[in-house]
C-alpha cells in the first residue's frame, strides 16, 4: 500500500515544492480557502475519525469544534516537541515530507479561523527548524502562505519556535507556557487550550503526525480515510519501532495489524533470534506488556491495546528481550523521569526523587522491603499529579513489578 504520511518513501524529492505540487500538494488547502466554510473543514476531519497521534488519541475534529468563537484571535500550535523515549516519527515527517505537514497546519488554521500558526520544535531540532523556515519562505513566495490568500480575505503566517531541552514541553499547556517565554510548566486544566490557550486565547494544539493526515483527508474524503484501520481507530499510524529488534525504524501501517506483524514482520524479529520478554507500546511512559502469544496476536488499535493493560499512546514500541532485566529497564525510566520532572507539583517532584533513591539502592542489594516501597511510592503518585507526565513516570515501575514478579525477588 502506498504511504499516506511517509510519502517520501514512494515519491522521491517530495520535500521539494514543485514535486509536492505535482503530486496534488496544496490543492486541498486552496480548495478549502476558496470553496469551503471553515466549519465544513472541521466537519470532514470529524467524520474521518482522525484521532490525535501524540499519545492521547483525542478526536481531532472534536477538538477543533471546541474552539471558543466569542474570544479572538485564535491560534494553532503544532506540537513538534517529540521527546518521548522511543518516538522518532515526527522528525522523519518534517525532514522528508515537510510540505504535507505544513499544509496540514494551514488547513487546521483555516478550519479554526487562526491567522497565525506556530510550530514548536524541541531545541535539539535546530537544523530542522532552519530547514522548515526555508520551506515556509518558499510557500510564502508561491502564494500558499501570506496575506489575502488566493484572492480571498484570509491571511495566514506560520512561524517556527525552538524549545531548549525539556520533555515536559510536550505536554500541551507546558508547551504553551514555554512558547509564551516562560519555564515550561503545565497549567491546571480545565480550562483546556481551545478555551484558554496561547496568550489566553483559544488554541488548537495538535501533534505533527495528526496534522500531516489532514491534507489527504480533505483531498480524498472522510470515507476514504475511514476505510482504513479498525472501527475503533480509523486510518494509518506511524509505529516507531526500537529496542532489541533487527530492523528498528518507522513503519506506517493501517490500524489493525498485530504486534507480531510489527515486531517479527516489519522489524525482522529479535536480535540473535532471542526470546522476546516485554513490549512497551508507548515509549518510556508505557505500561509493560508481558510479550506472550496473546499479546503478540493483539490488534494494534487504541481499544485493543487497552485490553492488555496498556495504552498505545504515540505508538513508540520498545522491544525488550531476555538479555535485559526488567529492573534495569525501570532504572532507566526512573532516571529519565527524575531528570525531566518539571518540579511544579509535589507528587511528581518528590515521588521521582524517592523512586530514584530506592532503585539505586536496589542495584547493590535488592531487599523485599525496597521493592515494596518502590511499588508503594509509584502507586501513591498515581492520580495525584498535575499533568499526565507525572502519571507516566509510574507506569513502567508499577506494571514491571506487578507483571514480572520473578525479576524482583530479593537477591
Amino acid at each position, binding site marked *: 500500500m502506498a504511504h499516506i504520511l511517509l510519502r517520501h518513501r514512494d515519491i522521491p524529492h517530495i520535500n521539494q515544492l514543485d514535486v509536492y505540487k505535482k503530486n496534488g500538494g496544496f490543492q486541498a488547502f486552496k480548495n478549502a480557502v476558496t470553496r469551503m466554510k471553515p466549519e465544513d473543514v472541521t466537519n470532514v476531519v470529524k467524520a474521518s475519525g482522525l484521532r490525535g497521534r501524540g499519545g492521547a488519541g483525542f478526536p481531532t475534529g472534536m477538538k477543533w469544534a471546541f474552539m471558543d468563537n466569542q474570544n479572538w484571535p485564535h491560534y494553532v500550535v503544532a506540537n513538534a516537541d517529540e521527546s518521548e*523515549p522511543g518516538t*522518532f516519527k515526527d522528525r522523519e515527517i518534517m525532514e522528508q515530507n515537510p510540505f504535507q505537514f505544513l499544509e496540514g497546519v494551514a488547513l487546521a488554521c483555516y478550519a479554526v479561523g487562526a491567522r497565525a500558526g506556530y510550530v514548536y520544535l524541541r531545541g535539539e531540532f535546530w537544523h530542522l527548524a532552519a530547514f522548515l523556515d526555508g520551506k515556509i519562505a518558499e510557500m510564502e513566495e508561491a502564494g500558499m502562505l501570506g496575506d489575502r490568500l488566493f484572492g480571498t480575505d484570509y491571511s495566514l503566517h506560520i512561524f517556527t519556535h525552538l524549545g531548549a531541552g525539556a520533555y515536559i514541553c510536550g505536554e500541551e499547556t507546558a508547551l504553551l507556557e514555554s512558547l509564551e517565554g516562560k519555564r515550561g510548566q503545565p497549567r491546571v486544566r480545565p480550562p483546556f487550550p481551545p478555551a484558554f490557550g496561547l496568550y489566553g486565547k483559544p488554541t488548537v494544539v495538535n501533534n505533527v503526525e495528526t496534522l500531516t493526515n489532514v491534507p489527504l483527508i480533505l483531498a480524498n474524503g472522510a470515507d476514504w480515510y475511514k476505510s482504513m484501520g479498525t472501527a475503533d481507530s480509523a486510518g494509518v499510524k506511524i509505529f516507531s519501532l526500537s529496542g532489541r529488534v533487527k530492523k528498528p525504524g518507522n513503519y506506517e501501517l493501517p490500524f489493525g495489524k498485530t504486534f507480531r506483524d510489527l515486531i517479527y514482520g516489519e522489524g525482522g524479529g529479535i536480535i540473535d533470534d532471542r526470546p522476546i520478554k516485554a513490549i512497551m507500546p508507548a515509549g518510556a511512559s508505557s505500561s509493560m506488556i508481558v510479550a506472550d502469544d496473546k499479546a503478540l496476536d493483539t490488534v494494534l488499535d487504541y481499544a485493543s491495546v487497552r485490553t492488555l493493560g496498556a495504552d498505545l499512546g504515540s505508538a513508540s514500541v520498545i522491544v525488550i528481550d531476555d538479555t535485559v532485566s526488567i529492573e534495569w529497564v525501570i532504572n532507566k525510566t526512573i532516571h529519565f523521569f527524575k531528570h525531566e520532572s518539571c518540579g511544579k507539583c509535589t507528587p511528581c517532584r518528590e515521588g521521582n526523587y524517592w523512586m530514584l533513591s530506592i532503585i539505586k539502592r536496589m542495584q547493590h542489594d535488592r531487599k523485599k522491603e525496597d521493592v515494596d516501597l518502590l511499588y508503594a511510592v509509584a502507586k501513591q503518585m498515581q492520580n495525584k499529579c498535575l499533568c499526565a507526565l507525572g502519571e507516566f513516570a509510574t507506569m513502567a515501575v508499577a506494571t514491571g513489578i506487578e507483571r514480572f514478579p520473578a525479576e524482583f525477588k530479593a537477591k
Partner: protein
Amino acid sequence: MSLAEKYPKEVKQILAKYPPEHKRSAVMPLLHLAQLQEGHVDRHAMQEIASLLDITETEIASIIGFYTLYHDKPEGKLRIQVCTDLPCALRGADQFLADLCDKLGIQPGGTTPDGIVTVEAVMCLAACDKAPMFQLQGPDGIEYHENMTVDKTVELIEALKKNDKEVK
C-alpha cells in the same frame, strides 16, 4: 559587543514572529542566539535580553536553569551529548559512552584537558533507531551524529579541532 550589534538581522526576525504585546515569547530564540558563539550565556547577554523584552534578569536566569540546552558557565566549546535513554541503551549506548570517555581520558560529564571537548549523557534525542548517537552542541548550533562508533567520533573531533585552528 551586544546581541543587537552582533546579530541585528536575526534579532529583528525573531521579534517579528510574535505579537508585539507578547514579545517575551522571543526569550528562548534570543538565548539560543546569545550562546551560539561562546557556548554559554553570559551576564551581559542576560541583561540585554531582559531589557529588550521588559522582563527581569532573574526571570531570564530561571529560564536558563530550567532548560537543559542553555548553559550559564563556560565549558568545552564542543559538547558531545550522548543519548543513553532506554531505547538507545538497548542498542549499546552506555557502552559507547564509557568507551568514548575512556578513549578521551575523561569521566562522563568531564572536559578534555585542552578545554575543548565536553562529553555528557543526555536524555532522549528522538533518534532511537540510529543508536549509538549523540548531538554535537557547538558554534554551528546543534548537529546529530547517528549510528556512531568511538573511532568515527574521535575522527570527527580531530577534524573539528583542525578546522577550528585553521579558522583562527
